[in-house]
């Protein structure tokens, strides 16, 4: 009776929660499997609950504690614990994307894939009066899933295949395996388990495994709860519904069903084993043999203060588990022998976690800064999350300072007391005290901070928020952001003029331009006296503006850039093929010159940084795609520009492959993927950061040759992923080494361009470039969805359409794909992990999941957002015709893109025609083919977009 009261109370609670929720809206809430069991547990209901309890679905959450799950997460670029990642929980739990208020107290995420994962949150339809009327139940939200719905989670996932190597799921068989028909008579009244006899007053009460699980979970407790959940103990009650249990009961002459028999329950549940002092509401016999079956009723020892004090815990009846405890049930049970030693090993759940094998942690040095006295060189190392200190005179590493995640750029305060490090993954700046060599403060800034630099006075620190298209201005005295300036798109690096009055900021992505128009990128000019944007210098037909350095004359700065000819088919081989690599001269008065660094037979892929010698004579430019540094004779370069007409400077020199030999003196080889370059104040030495070699190359400027490699102390072994990373950043795979994967996918993301790939005519079938962040399980690939795997995408097809020389070898391809999979997804900036939705986001979620229009028309299932973009990947991984076909397009059906962090990969749609999320629906969905949206009011559309940005 107690359990009936308990469950009834839960139902009442559920209903009250629902009523309370109606103040905000009528959204249903998840009630949990145990509430379903109220009716669906009896023999006459086919023991549906027990069937689920014994299924893999019920253990889906627990298996995320397995080491294999951790590997899958790593392989998928998921930095969190699998049991905390909504991406993993999306298929391994129920309601993973629901807000806290959408889950009733009777709901436990630890129950894995529960009834409501397939049938929908149950608060609105769980009432027996509704459930006995199928139509009413469906109207109230009961979902009747089809096999197709199961495919949302059960499609082949590359990450899971790589680790488990399981064959493709036989869906027909799986469907049969989880079949849970009702019994013959259809008596839906649950017959509760009998009352355990003899509860002793004063004895501690049972609290249930979920209470234990609040602490005994996660890696810190060696996943003890999940280990129990994966054990047979957790299935002890459910197994009593199996035919075998019935056979045993019959053999023993029992007249009731096993689950109603105290004789069976005394070893298949906790409370019947020893009634103790009874049970709290949090306990349920459905848990089978829980923690307290062996450790004793927890009512008195469960407080953390008691549990962490062994003597107090013992006094509170925490029981030591002995052989005798187990033997009470296992001795000669059903004629099965019992080996205590082996059994204990089998259910071992030590509190101290086993030491996991450490994955090699590389350094990946990206950018550097000299201390003002020139004695030390600080190196921002992305992979090790540190800043490495190099003694300039001794040319060796002398210290390593922990910073935030993904340090990208570093700079010093003018007085040398502090160093500032941008942490790209954390959206912060680490403030390092140089004397103590430790981070003393962390300053929050915008999304994905990249370049950092102070003005000459040190009063302001400028931080380039590369994913927010803005520049944070930090008051270095208070370490507070005082304003945020508008950059162009993806601000990257910055350099101040010799007099300090101006700062030039390069922007990695082109401004938005009209459809089928060439790029226009920008150098943003900051007036340091006002800490405000003074000018925006347009750099035509260029993108990926990255490195920048002012000439000591103060007349101009040099920048690195690409000149990508994305509007013509990639087959065109005029003036340097698809991507040419260039140097830009940005004059102080706003004029711009561009010259190529590519030569007819030898390209200069991925120019990443530039540094000018103090005498203004030479410029050193790194090519991360070809592991070289180009040495530019600046006077010669200037004389070429001065000798040219305005027309030549505008149209000829920027595309002239013959000119670089006139001003590039030599190329100096480096190690893998050189990025940042710096020259000492005396102009004698240059340092180059070799990102994928964990080293610095030292260049003697007089000799113009590399004279030393400084080892930064990374692992010597090259893992498969690291090998793949090198391949990704190397142009060796392309014709004339002109570009690398990184050229179009800088740091695994996007270059914001729409490409004309195939030789089907100029402008035919243009396709938007898509991010590689978190794409592993989103196959098929390509906008037409014709490539079923990354191997196919990056294999021979890549050679045919992009690189045009021999494809990757199978070994290379495997490594490359491995790396691509691990490109991390940055945390969502619009909804931090675990945060509640804002009101606007919440309203937007309703729009995303709506089934009715504003005027109460039913939206066909295929025209709902959630149908094709369902969690956790937010793609159904199929192609659809959504009315986006233009006359330029060959196909009319396009792959459904995933929506993870969709806010940072504009433009949108297959051809990149929509510059903003709004335009997808305001301009390019006139006939409601891409979801029914035309009835939405403007505020509803705004809400929808606010929600989409949280995915």
């Amino acid at each position: 009776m107690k359990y009936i009261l308990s469950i009834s109370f839960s139902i009442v609670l559920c209903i009250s929660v629902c009523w309370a929720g109606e103040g905000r809206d009528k959204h249903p809430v998840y009630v949990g499997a145990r509430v379903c069991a109220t009716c669906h547990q009896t023999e006459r209901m086919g023991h549906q609950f027990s069937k689920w309890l014994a299924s893999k679905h019920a253990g889906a959450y627990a298996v995320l504690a397995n080491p294999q799950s951790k590997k899958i997460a790593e392989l998928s670029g998921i930095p969190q614990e699998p049991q905390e990642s909504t991406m993993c929980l999306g298929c391994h739990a129920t309601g993973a994307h629901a807000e806290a208020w959408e889950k009733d107290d009777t709901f436990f995420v630890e129950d894995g894939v529960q009834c409501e994962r397939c049938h929908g949150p149950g608060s609105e339809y769980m009432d027996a009066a509704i459930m006995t009327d199928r139509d009413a139940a469906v109207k109230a939200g009961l979902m009747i899933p089809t096999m197709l719905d199961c495919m949302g989670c059960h499609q082949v996932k590359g990450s899971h295949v790589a680790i488990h190597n399981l064959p493709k799921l036989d869906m027909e068989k799986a469907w049969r395996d989880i079949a849970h028909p009702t019994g013959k008579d259809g008596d839906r009244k649950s017959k509760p388990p009998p009352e355990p006899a003899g509860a002793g007053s004063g004895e501690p009460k049972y609290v249930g495994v979920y209470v234990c699980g609040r602490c005994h979970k996660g890696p810190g407790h060696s996943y003890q709860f999940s280990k129990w959940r994966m054990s047979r103990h957790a299935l002890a009650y459910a197994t009593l519904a199996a035919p075998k249990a019935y056979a045993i009961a019959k053999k023993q002459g029992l007249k009731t069903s096993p689950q109603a028999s105290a004789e069976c329950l005394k070893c298949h549940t906790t409370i019947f084993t020893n009634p103790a002092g009874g049970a709290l509401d949090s306990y349920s016999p459905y848990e089978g043999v829980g923690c307290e079956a062996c450790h004793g009723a927890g009512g008195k020892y469960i407080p953390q203060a008691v549990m962490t004090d062994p003597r107090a815990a013992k006094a509170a009846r925490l029981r030591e588990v002995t052989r005798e405890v187990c033997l009470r049930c296992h001795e000669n049970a059903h004629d099965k022998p019992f080996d205590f030693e082996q059994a204990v090993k089998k259910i071992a759940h030590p509190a101290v976690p086993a030491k996991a094998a450490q994955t090699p942690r590389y350094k990946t040095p990206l950018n550097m800064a000299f201390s003002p006295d020139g004695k030390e060189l600080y190196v921002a190392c992305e992979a090790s999350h540190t800043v490495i200190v190099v003694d300039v005179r001794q040319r060796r590493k002398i210290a390593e300072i922990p910073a935030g995640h993904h340090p990208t750029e570093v700079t010093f305060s003018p007085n040398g007391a502090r160093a500032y490090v941008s942490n790209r993954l954390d959206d912060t700046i680490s403030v390092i005290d140089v004397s103590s060599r430790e981070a003393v403060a962390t300053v929050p800034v915008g999304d994905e901070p990249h370049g950092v630099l102070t003005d000459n006075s040190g009063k302001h620190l400028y931080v380039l928020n590369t994913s927010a298209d803005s520049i944070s201005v930090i008051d270095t005295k208070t370490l507070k952001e005082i304003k945020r300036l508008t950059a162009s798109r993806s601000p990257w690096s910055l350099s101040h003029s010799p007099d300090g009055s101006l700062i030039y900021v390069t922007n990695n992505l082109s401004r938005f331009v009209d459809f089928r128009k060439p790029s226009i990128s920008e150098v943003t000019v900051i007036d340091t006296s006002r800490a405000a944007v003074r000018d925006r210098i347009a750099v035509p037909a260029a993108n990926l503006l990255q490195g920048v350095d002012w000439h000591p004359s103060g007349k101009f700065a040099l920048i690195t850039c690409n000149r990508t000819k994305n509007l013509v088919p990639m087959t065109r081989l005029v003036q340097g093929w698809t991507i040419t690599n260039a140097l830009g001269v940005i004059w102080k008065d706003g004029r711009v010159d561009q010259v190529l660094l590519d030569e007819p037979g030898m390209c200069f892929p991925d120019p990443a940084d530039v540094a000018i010698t103090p005498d203004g004579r030479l410029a050193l430019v790194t090519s991360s795609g070809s592991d070289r540094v180009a040495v530019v004779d600046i006077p010669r370069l200037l004389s070429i520009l001065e000798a040219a007409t305005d027309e030549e400077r505008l149209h000829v020199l920027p595309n002239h492959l013959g000119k670089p030999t006139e001003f590039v003196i030599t190329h100096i080889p480096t190690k893998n993927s050189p990025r940042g370059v710096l020259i000492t104040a005396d102009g004698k030495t240059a340092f180059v950061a070799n990102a994928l070699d964990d080293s610095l190359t030292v260049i003697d400027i007089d000799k113009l040759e590399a004279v030393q490699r400084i080892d930064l102390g990374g692992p010597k072994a090259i893992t498969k992923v690291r090998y793949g990373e090198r391949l990704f950043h190397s142009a060796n795979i392309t014709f004339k080494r002109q570009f690398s994967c990184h050229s179009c996918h800088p740091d695994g993301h996007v270059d914001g361009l729409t490409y004309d790939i195939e030789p089907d005519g100029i402008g035919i079938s243009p396709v938007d470039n898509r991010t590689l962040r978190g794409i592993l399980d989103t196959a098929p690939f390509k906008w037409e969805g014709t490539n079923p795997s990354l191997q196919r995408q990056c294999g021979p097809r890549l050679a045919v359409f992009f690189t045009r020389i021999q494809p990757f070898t199978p070994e290379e391809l495997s490594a490359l794909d491995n790396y691509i999979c691990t490109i991390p997804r940055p945390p969502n900036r619009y909804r931090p992990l675990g945060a509640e939705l804002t009101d606007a986001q919440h309203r937007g979620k309703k729009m995303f999941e709506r089934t009715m229009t504003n005027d109460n028309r039913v939206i066909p299932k295929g025209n709902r957002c959630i149908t094709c973009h369902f969690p956790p990947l937010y793609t159904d991984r199929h192609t659809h015709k959504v009315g986006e076909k233009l006359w330029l397009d060959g196909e009319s059906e396009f792959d459904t893109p995933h929506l993870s962090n969709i806010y940072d990969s504009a433009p949108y749609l297959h051809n990149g025609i929509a510059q903003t999320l709004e335009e997808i629906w305001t301009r390019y969905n006139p006939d409601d083919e891409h979801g029914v949206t035309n009835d939405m009011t403007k505020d509803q559309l705004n809400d929808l977009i606010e929600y989409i940005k949280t995915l």
Partner: protein
Amino acid sequence: MKYLIISARILMVLWLGETALCQAKDLTSGLPAFSSISVCATEQKLPYVYTEWKHFTTKDGLPNDHVFAVKADGSKVWVGTENGLACIDKTTGKIKSWKEKDGLPWRVVSALDVNTKTGELWVGLFGGGLARFSGGRFDHWHQLNSGLINDVVYGVAIENDNVWAATTAGASRYNTVTGEWTIYTEKNAPMEEIWNYGVSYDAGKVYLGIWGSGVLEFDVATESWKDYLDPDGEMEIDLYRDDGIVHVITTGTSYIDGILWVSSYFGMCRYDGRHWRGYFAHETGLPSDFGNAVKGRDANEAWFATDKGVGVLADFPSDTWVTYTMDPNTHRGKAVVTQGQITLEIVDMPRGIPHNYALWTEFDGNNIWVGTSKGLANAIGIGYYKGLRSRARWVAPSGEIEAGKSGGHKTKRPKRSG
């Protein structure tokens, strides 16, 4: 009441006599050199009167003479016109302008505000949405590419990191850091009508002037709304004076020093948080009840741009007004100082506001900018002082001291028709 009127007439007679005496003297030395203006030696407590005016029209480089918005920004003055944006460099006197061919996203610039932290200019476009002008680049937000509620933007105001746009279909608030758009309409604000005419921000409060819905106050800290409606309903007379806002068809708001100034099509108001005070043309120096805009200089001084000139409540405690108009026949300017029904001073000037249909006023230190339907005016405020001060009176050559009545054709600021 009749004693009051008699007293006022006695004062008027005395003053007229004094003015006649003053005409005999020319005491202009040491004051701005207007050949046609003389000064009376007798001192009286009077407000400051702007007598030196400069005009800017298309001849000087403005892209259009219909000036809808003006924003002073340090050494620059931004001017929004019916066909382009202009910037007057006060240090060089040069005017630079932008039309659609120069990148301005839409021809009609109806509102301007400057983010003083970043220096970015925000531009309300009448029918074209919202634009940001920064470093020579225009960024454009409109109904189709953003969450802006409507492209017909009447007013723009910067509030912290947010930009407010008063539009014909509600107000939009754009967070420039997060990119979030919030819309305020009748659904989530006490907006009886959604036609937002004006928006202003100061000291944690955003005020919306709404056609048919009075004034709405948005408290930034609590994100809560408060509405101010005409207690007389939608009557076009003020049935019970000073009982609230004079009319619900409001066109502009200005909040400064804890005082809310409001312009409407049927009179103007001042609200100190407890008491309302209504102002009408028939009893004050307001040239007209038809207010296009208002700008408060402090708690005691406000400038009202009307369809018949500019009315300035120069000193609230003494109810002293200065009315600036232009004679449509001679194009000479006139400033009339009144206190209640009494005219204290008439100043005839070779130049005043360029047209009586005034659309905007803007403070620039001691100087004033006035946008009209026929050009922009800059009034130079050398020796400006607040309130009243004892000084000699300006006297027109004719000795005229009655309030000027100007006419002229109307070029309306974009507004609701019908």
